[in-house]
């Protein structure tokens, strides 16, 4: 990508226009500076050029001392041609037009031209380039090559070999970007196939991206197959909420229903990639089991109710409930939802029993992450502890891999199980499950030894010396709170960070887990004292808490201790379940309130690097579903007269005024690229 470069500028001429570009810049990129376009298939700005498709041919000449231009006899591929002093490029000559026509005619010889039934038809680079630069007819009258159609490479990706123009983008993606190298060209020649080894399942965690970068319809999505044509779609920008990375995506909807998710470019976050979980994991939004009505328990069953009835009942139980009421918040609630939830508990219910953490232990607050996803690219190294980044934080994983691939960053990995990151890690160390604290203690000891000039032997010593050489940030995830000795592990990690002089980043896992931390959706925030998740559930189980509010969370799925959840939900007197799906917990509910899914209402999310990203409603919610913040606002108004909140923007503006960390966050900036939260704020008085 066009990152800042310190290469000296050189003078080149494109179509008679003189310009300065950094030396070595590829001509295909230089041409974009003039707003011109060169047709391409195989070239992708984020991958190394290969010059396979020959579509980007340009005429090249060199300036002679007398001022004339001597052209090279043959055209050159602009994607592999670096800029050098005095280069003269022609992209618009008779000869080039003829060459492009020839290349396209060749590419189309074996292309089946089944555009009417191809999912790519209408947004296909091959179609576009043929229309703009290609011949209107073909001289090829012989039989076309026939190959397998609609072969399922995996449950996400369908391969149509006939349509493949053999540009190698997918192969290079798995080799250069995702790093699993699962696709390769087999039987190179006329029968070339970009497939997996022995046609095994394409299990890459980033396989969906190959669908997007395929310049024809050879790799298509199995989920989107035949569901819409591009001109049927309405597209809106969105944020993925399947994990805490906050990838920028496009929501494509047809008739108000989400049919597809594509990556949206944000250089600071996901570049243009998405992981398969985000791209294909949203089918639940169209689930027939979506909660769409307000339901109130009457005897053994539920009966439909209206919002006013439900509100009255809830207020009766919760108002001024103090320590007898509690709430648990889910990871997919937006900043606005969480902020009003906390205010409702503080002001209307007078309770601090509010938590969003679903780990088995709730410890004291940790300092917020201070790394940036983009910044990882320039690190000399990083230390990944106890996390499977490719599953838990896929975009951070891609950036770390890019740092290794491009700059040779030395990544250290310490996990209890083999991990995808081992493939590129400089040092990867295994410790036994349950031995985290001991492992870290010996690592800290080794660091101390090495800082004093000594060194022992073994992989631990290698790890310590690499850490001392690279001094990259320590990356762990909040799943470490599920460990038995979580407190000790954290203390040792802090010690290691101090010794190394680097930052310790405990990454949130839920889409807005970091936002919940920043907004104080935890019992000890803002000098309050209340119960954490485990204590809340225990208190519910033995009757100390009479009313529980589950806001967008199903503790059966989220909380590790299932039996405790069951006892809690069975014994609590009154249970409000605010949910998008008819979850297991909803069966225990006294009131079920349908909420909108992310994307069905405006909202902003805070991702793992503390970037607030806002997006607007893209999909129609089911009948009665309301955004969670609206419910909280309406309840607060009913409890005591006050100005209601009308929109998510307004609430974000209020957050920016009220919460120090969010100072200066504006909706428009949060929507266009996102805003990094500023200074660290004191989270709680009692930091142990």
């Amino acid at each position, binding site marked *: 990508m066009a990152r800042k470069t310190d290469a000296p500028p050189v003078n080149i001429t494109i179509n008679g226009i003189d310009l300065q570009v950094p030396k070595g810049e590829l001509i295909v990129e230089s041409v974009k500076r003039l707003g011109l376009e060169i047709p391409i298939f195989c070239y992708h700005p984020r991958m190394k050029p290969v010059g396979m498709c020959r579509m980007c041919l340009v005429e090249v000449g060199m300036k002679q001392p007398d001022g004339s231009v001597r052209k090279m006899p043959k055209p050159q591929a602009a994607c592999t041609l670096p800029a050098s002093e005095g280069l003269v490029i022609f992209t618009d000559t008779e000869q080039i037009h003829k060459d492009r026509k020839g290349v396209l005619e060749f590419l189309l010889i074996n292309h089946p031209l089944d555009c009417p039934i191809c999912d790519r038809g209408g947004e296909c680079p091959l179609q576009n380039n043929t229309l703009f630069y290609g011949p209107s007819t073909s001289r090829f009258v012989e039989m076309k090559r026939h190959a397998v159609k609609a072969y399922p490479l995996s449950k996400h990706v369908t391969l149509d070999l006939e349509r493949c123009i053999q540009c190698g983008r997918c192969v290079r993606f798995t080799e250069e970007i995702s790093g699993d190298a699962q696709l390769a060209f087999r039987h190179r020649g006329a029968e070339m196939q970009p497939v997996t080894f022995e046609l095994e399942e394409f299990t890459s965690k980033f396989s969906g991206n190959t669908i997007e970068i395929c310049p024809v319809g050879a790799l298509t999505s199995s989920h989107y197959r035949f*569901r*819409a044509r591009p001109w049927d779609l309405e597209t809106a920008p969105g944020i993925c909420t399947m994990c805490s990375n906050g990838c920028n995506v496009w929501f494509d909807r047809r008739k108000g229903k989400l049919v597809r998710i594509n990556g949206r470019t944000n250089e600071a976050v996901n570049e243009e990639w998405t992981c398969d979980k985000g791209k294909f994991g949203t089918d639940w939004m169209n689930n027939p089991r979506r909660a769409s009505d307000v339901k109130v328990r009457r005897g053994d069953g539920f009966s439909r109710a209206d919002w006013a009835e439900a509100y009255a009942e809830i207020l009766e139980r919760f108002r001024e409930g103090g320590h007898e009421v509690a709430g648990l918040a889910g990871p997919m609630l937006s900043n606005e939802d969480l902020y009003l939830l906390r205010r409702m508990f503080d002001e209307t219910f007078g309770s601090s029993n509010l938590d969003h953490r679903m780990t088995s232990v709730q410890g004291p607050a940790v300092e917020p992450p201070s790394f940036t996803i983009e910044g990882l690219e320039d690190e000399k190294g990083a230390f990944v502890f106890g996390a499977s980044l490719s599953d838990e934080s896929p975009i951070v994983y891609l950036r770390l891999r890019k740092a290794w691939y491009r700059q040779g960053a030395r990544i250290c990995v310490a996990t209890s199980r083999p991990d995808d990151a081992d493939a590129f890690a400089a040092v990867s160390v295994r410790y036994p499950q349950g031995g985290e604290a001991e492992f870290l203690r010996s690592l800290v000891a080794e660091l101390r030894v090495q800082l004093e000039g000594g060194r022992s032997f073994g992989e631990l010593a290698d790890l310590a010396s690499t850490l001392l050489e690279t001094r990259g940030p320590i990356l762990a995830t909040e799943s470490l709170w599920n460990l038995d000795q979580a407190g000790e592990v954290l203390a040792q990690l802090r010690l290691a960070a101090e010794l190394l002089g680097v930052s310790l980043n405990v990454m949130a896992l839920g889409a807005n887990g970091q936002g919940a931390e920043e907004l104080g959706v935890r019992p000890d925030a803002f000098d309050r004292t209340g119960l954490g998740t485990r204590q809340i559930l225990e208190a519910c189980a033995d009757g100390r808490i009479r009313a529980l509010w589950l806001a967008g969370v199903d503790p059966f799925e989220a909380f590790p201790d299932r039996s405790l959840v069951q006892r809690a939900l069975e014994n609590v007197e009154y249970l409000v379940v605010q949910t998008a799906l008819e979850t297991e917990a909803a069966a225990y509910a006294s009131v079920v309130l349908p909420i909108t899914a992310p994307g069905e209402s405006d909202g902003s999310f805070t991702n793992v690097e503390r970037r607030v990203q806002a997006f607007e409603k893209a999909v129609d919610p089911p009948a009665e579903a309301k955004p969670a913040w609206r419910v909280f606002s309406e309840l607060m108004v009913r409890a005591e007269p006050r100005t209601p909140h009308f929109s998510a923007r307004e609430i974000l503006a209020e957050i920016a005024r009220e919460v120090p960390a969010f100072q200066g966050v504006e909706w428009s900036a949060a929507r266009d690229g996102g805003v990094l939260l500023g200074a660290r704020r004191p989270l709680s008085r009692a930091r142990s």
Partner: protein
Amino acid sequence: MAIDVIRDVAKPILAGFGITGRRLKHPKVTVQYPEQTREQYPRTRWRHFLTRYESGLERCIGCSLCAGACPARCIYVEAAENTDQERYSPGERYAKRYEINMIRCIFCGYCQEACPTGAIVLRKNFELADYKRESFVYTKEMLLEEYPGQADEPYVSIYQRQS
């Protein structure tokens, strides 16, 4: 006075009857609709039909190009995949739902123009009136009816048409 009456009243009347009288010899142009119908021009475009191949398979492949071309946005197509057990059209894809809103349609014929398989055709059936708005949404089953004279009409692909 009498001359004035003859000139201003009687003469025009007689002249008028004269025209009527001369017209009596001309052939009659009105038709007794609905008992009689006038022959339509060869390129008249009215009701849509979805055609089939001789094998009985549907020509429509559910590609939505008609919907894309439609200036009135009155066509809705939902595609699905053929299986060997349930085969509707020759290729991979067929139209699971195909609906045209006849109230919106302006009978421009762009859908017929856009169709890559010649599945949708506009024929001369113009008696489309009905009582309910809902009944103007023509479903795939309605559109797949055979139109009068379809059996005798050879299919000409758009690529074979004489220009």
